[in-house]
């Protein structure tokens, strides 16, 4: 064996190895209820609250969210794209299947989890749901409404494309428009 056989991979080799991590996707949707069911059987989860009290945690969460918003609380800022040596990209979420308020809340939660996952991986990312009346110009032109956005810092376009393809909005019948920010 020569001295450098265990040394670093070259760029192509390193990229190919990293590319293997993209396969496999996510666990099937039915896995979560299966695990939750098993945990209930094992007594690892509390019994579900019933009646009016079931809404108490949500009401408290809503109150804190409003207080946080009024206080101008914002998410801590992640390192800039420049700091990561990359480019900022905007992901515009368009359309999406209509949903009940409960489904929308679940969707918001899911998108937040996706955002948290990106941040955990060191990707600078932020995003928000867009609400209220839309004004599109020129008026009368048929466009799918923009319902939310994310701004992410990616190393290059291929990483940005991979991030956009994994956006949960696509699972809900929506579209994602990806563009680099100059």
């Amino acid at each position, binding site marked *: 064996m020569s001295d450098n056989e265990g040394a670093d991979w070259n760029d192509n080799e390193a990229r190919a190895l990293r590319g293997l991590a993209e396969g496999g996707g996510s666990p099937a949707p039915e896995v979560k209820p299966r*695990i*939750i069911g098993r945990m209930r059987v094992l007594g690892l989860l509390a019994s579900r609250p019933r009646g009016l009290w079931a809404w108490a945690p949500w009401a408290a969460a809503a109150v804190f969210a409003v207080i946080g918003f009024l206080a101008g609380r914002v998410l801590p800022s992640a390192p800039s794209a420049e700091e990561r040596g990359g480019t900022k990209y905007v992901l515009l979420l368009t359309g999406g299947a209509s949903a009940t308020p409960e489904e929308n809340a679940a969707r918001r939660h899911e998108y937040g989890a996706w955002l948290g996952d990106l941040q955990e991986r060191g990707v600078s990312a932020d995003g928000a749901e867009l609400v209220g009346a839309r004004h599109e110009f020129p008026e009368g032109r048929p466009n799918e409404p923009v319902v939310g956005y994310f701004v992410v810092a990616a190393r290059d376009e291929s990483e940005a494309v991979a991030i956009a393809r994994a956006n949960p909005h696509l699972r809900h019948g929506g579209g994602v428009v990806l563009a680099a920010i100059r």
Partner: protein
Amino acid sequence: MSRYETPSDPELVRRFLEDRAQESFESLYDRHSPYLFRVAFRMLHGDRSAAEDVLQEAWIRAVTSLSRFRGESTLRTWLCGITMNCCREVWRRRTFVPIDELPESPSPSRADRLQGVRLERALGQLDHDSREIIELYDVLGHTHDEVAAILDIAPGTSKSRLFRARATLRGILGTD
């Protein structure tokens, strides 16, 4: 406009330990399961069903001992260590056949795909220790400190194991 909320991991853990509610667990599950599944999927040679079983076992163990999580590493690293232990138990029970097809990935070119298949075959021939370190460091992108925390070894051991594992992998790829 309302921002998509991203509470920190310690906050999610605190909430769960406080109420043990399904919703609190789901917040943790939704954030970390895609990654933990990816770890198990890689370690179990692309066997989705086995990876999902490992994910279940890992969450049950994690929730059982969550109150003992001291935050010495990130929650994800800690969960990854539990997942790795579950994968090792599966390894002990069965033998995997190296996969011939590259798992689904975002529109790889033909050349990338062939390169991927070649790598998968070579990885399938590695011993478990070598495979673990290559998967964690080279494929999943962990640092040596994280690998050390996941495998419960010293960072220096992680570096020397990686060196040896890469040499073995290069040898396999060279004779492919």
